[in-house]
């Protein structure tokens, strides 16, 4: 039976959710640090907690509802399609960044921009409220993508709890790392992480959309790591091709952690 993810699936699922959540939380943390530095830590942390509680409530409400009220085959087809589109977007951007054709995400620049905006805002009125709202929006909006990933991957594989736990672990890890590295978030190898997430989302998306339309996968869910490897090879080849076409030295390997250090 190919309907359940039984062996390799949970590990790939945890890695995919953890990496996706980490990337989004690094982006959120940049905003929170900027709020904390300029508007005070109390309002920033209140905004973070409120956003995390709201996001957790969304997962708790929508996850069981999806599982109970949507037929599994339809859920797999829709979720597979969503993951395929979303994953292709991530992978495309990561390939273009690795090939030097798209600007890398610069957390230092984003931090400086946020600080400048918040410092320029009127300092006296609504100081705490501004900090709360900016921190809440930053975490909530970045977290929404995580919620979609947790819900889609978690419900389709019947591992919603595991997916939610992986996302929660990523939040804790990024928070601790954020406290340690403070404002040096540009050191996080974000492009390599996005490449990994993109590969896994496209692989899950291919697998489940295939299941939804009746594809017979040889080896059932063991096809997932094979798909990850195949798409990884394709991404590497694309980066190499673009590098060679533009006359660059092929240095930006697909999985290179230093891709974001520029």
């Amino acid at each position, binding site marked *: 039976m190919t309907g359940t993810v039984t062996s390799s699936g949970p590990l790939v699922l945890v890695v995919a959710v953890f990496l996706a959540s980490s990337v989004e939380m690094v982006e959120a943390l940049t905003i929170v640090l900027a709020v904390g530095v300029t508007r005070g830590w109390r309002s920033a942390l209140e905004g973070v907690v409120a956003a995390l509680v709201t996001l957790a409530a969304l997962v708790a409400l929508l996850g069981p509802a999806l599982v109970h009220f949507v037929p599994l085959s339809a859920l797999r*087809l829709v979720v*597979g*399609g*969503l993951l*395929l*589109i*979303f994953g*292709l*977007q991530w*992978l*495309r951007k990561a*390939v*273009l960044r690795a*090939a*030097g*054709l*798209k*600007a890398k995400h610069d957390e230092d620049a984003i931090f400086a921009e946020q600080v400048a905006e918040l410092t320029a805002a009127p300092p006296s009125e609504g100081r705490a409220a501004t900090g709360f709202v900016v921190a809440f929006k930053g975490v909530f909006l970045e977290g*929404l*993508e995580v919620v*979609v990933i947790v819900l889609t991957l978690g419900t389709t594989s019947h591992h919603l709890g595991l997916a939610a736990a992986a996302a929660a672990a990523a939040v804790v890890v990024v928070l601790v790392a954020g406290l340690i590295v403070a404002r040096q978030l540009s050191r996080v190898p974000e492009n390599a992480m996005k490449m990994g997430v993109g590969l896994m989302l*496209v692989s899950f*998306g*291919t697998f489940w*959309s*295939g299941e*939804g*339309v*009746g*594809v*017979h*996968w*040889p080896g059932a869910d063991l*096809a997932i790591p094979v*798909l990850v490897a*195949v*798409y990884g090879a*394709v*991404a590497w080849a*694309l980066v190499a091709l*673009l590098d060679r*076409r533009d006359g660059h030295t092929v240095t930006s390997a697909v999985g290179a952690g230093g891709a974001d250090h520029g």
Partner: protein
Amino acid sequence: MAEGEAPSGSRPLVARWIVGFGHFWWDFLIGDTPELFVGALVVVGSVALLCLDHSLRTAAALVLPVLVAALLGASVWKAGRKRPS
């Protein structure tokens, strides 16, 4: 802003939520890569047609990743033709 046009802040809360919800899904699914959205639908739709013939369902396991990889390659190549600013 044109005269008579209501500022977004004066819209009812429900309308703002609906617009925001629509924006989120538009950005999430389409954004600046409509070719990936349309391409993914075409790829999955084509494989669904292939799978109508039960004898081709195992072959479809090969066709689907190949089509997805081709879609990614085409989108990346299209973007790569524009030099970075």
